[in-house]
């Protein structure tokens, strides 16, 4: 279980979070939607231990937590395979075993042997994102934190990677806290949808949903979500920027 108990975070000119409460259960895929700058990334940084709260407490009871950042954050001097192996080396796995497992994982993500040997600067943006996701999953976490990892990719590629992540999460039963400001991405991935207000962030909508894959169903679910007054106010109100990658 990941719990935020009355968490306050002050940063710069005002509070990012004020007495914020949230719990993510094992196996749950919680997607956080919110306007830019509302504190979504701060929540993930608190959950991963990169930032300490100014008040309250964050309790992460998961055995192992992995993070997929907004940028792939790959080691430019290592191959794709070695970048994935890094997460395993960090867990004390031997070099040979780490590389073998990393190669297998990348193979499942559509990488050829030649692709595995390429350094990040020789990979496309989509492939770099796959490597970052593979690195996060390599160390078999039971919680993965994802901070808009596909925001910079085009719509088609983003959908492929969303399916990849959804498949990996379903296969392994791990919990995920996924941050996005793309409503359709949220609807595609979530089995729990949380909408945050502008700063200081508070949850204005919390709904358990069944992930949808059909484009028309995604569109309907996204439209239904945006029809809710509290969600509309949070995402479309002053300062709220909503993004949808859905195309008819």
């Amino acid at each position, binding site marked *: 279980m990941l719990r935020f108990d009355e968490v306050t975070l002050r940063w710069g000119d005002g509070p990012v979070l004020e007495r914020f409460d949230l719990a993510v259960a094992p196996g749950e895929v919680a997607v956080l939607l919110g306007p830019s700058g509302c504190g979504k990334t701060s929540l993930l940084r608190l959950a*991963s*231990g*990169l930032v300490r709260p100014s008040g309250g407490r964050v309790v992460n009871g998961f055995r192992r*937590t*992995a*993070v997929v*950042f907004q*940028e792939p*954050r790959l*080691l*430019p*001097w*290592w191959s794709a395979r070695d970048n994935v192996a*890094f*997460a395993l*080396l*960090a*867990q*004390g796995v031997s070099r040979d075993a780490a590389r073998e497992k990393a190669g297998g994982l990348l193979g499942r993500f559509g990488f050829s042997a030649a692709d595995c040997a*390429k*350094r990040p*600067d*020789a*990979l*496309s943006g989509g*492939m770099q994102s796959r490597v970052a996701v593979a*690195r996060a999953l390599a*160390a078999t976490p039971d919680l993965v934190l994802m901070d808009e990892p596909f925001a910079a990719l085009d719509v088609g590629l983003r959908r492929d990677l969303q399916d990849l992540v959804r498949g990996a999460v379903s296969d392994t039963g791990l919990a995920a806290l996924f941050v996005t400001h793309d409503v359709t991405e949220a609807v595609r991935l979530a089995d729990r949808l949380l909408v945050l207000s502008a700063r200081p962030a508070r949850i204005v909508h919390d709904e358990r949903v069944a992930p949808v894959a059909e484009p028309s169903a995604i569109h309907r679910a996204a439209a239904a979500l945006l029809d809710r007054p509290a969600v509309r106010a949070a995402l479309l109100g002053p300062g709220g920027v909503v993004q949808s990658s859905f195309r008819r």
Partner: protein
Amino acid sequence: MPHRLARAALGLAGLAVVAAGWQAGWRMLGPFVLPQPAETVETLARLVVDGEAGPALRVTIVNALGGWAAGAALGTGLGIAAGLAWPLGAALRPVMTVTLGTPPIAFVVLALLWFGPQGGAPAFTVLVTTAPIVFAGAAQGVAARDPQLSEMARVCGAPPLLRLRALLLPQLLDHLLPALATALAFAWKVAVMAEVLAGGSGIGGRIAEARAHLDLAETMAWILLIVGLLLVCDGLLLAPMRRVLRGRRPHVAAG
């Protein structure tokens, strides 16, 4: 490969132009200003055959490489420490700037006074002139670390040794290797200059001796020897460093 051959051929052509200029200078100015190239080469051959060149080379190599290695170790250690701990960096930077700005000849004179003519003045001078160069590179390399990669390593739970090997050293090398190469090129010049002033049995000392005897051919022969040493050093040490750096530059991204 053809590109490499062309580069080598052009390099040789450049050296041939210098040799031709030297020959022309000898004809115009006379042997009291510039010795004949052939005579210089003969003198150099004699120095090698008579066994005078070997010991002089050894002494200069020990002075230059020994001083460089000590300066590199000191500069790297202090530079990494300064990059990791800002108070140390703030305290050391002005010291290194002052050291770097002090003419090497001042250190030679001081070292001669402190250690005497046979007391390692050239190696000491090389050490104090190369250490600040390497320090600057190492400190910059540590300071220029990508904080995003450090965060990634932290959330992966990477232990310190893995962070050192996978993150710190590769980022450090980008700045440290050019600094080491610059310091090494500098080390030869400083070593010979210090030997000229300190005397002794190194190449610089032999140049000073030949100058005292007004033996222009021998002076030029020793200079040729040190230039040859520089070229060998470039091929054996600096060229591999340049290759490492080139190999680390980003490729063109695939679509």
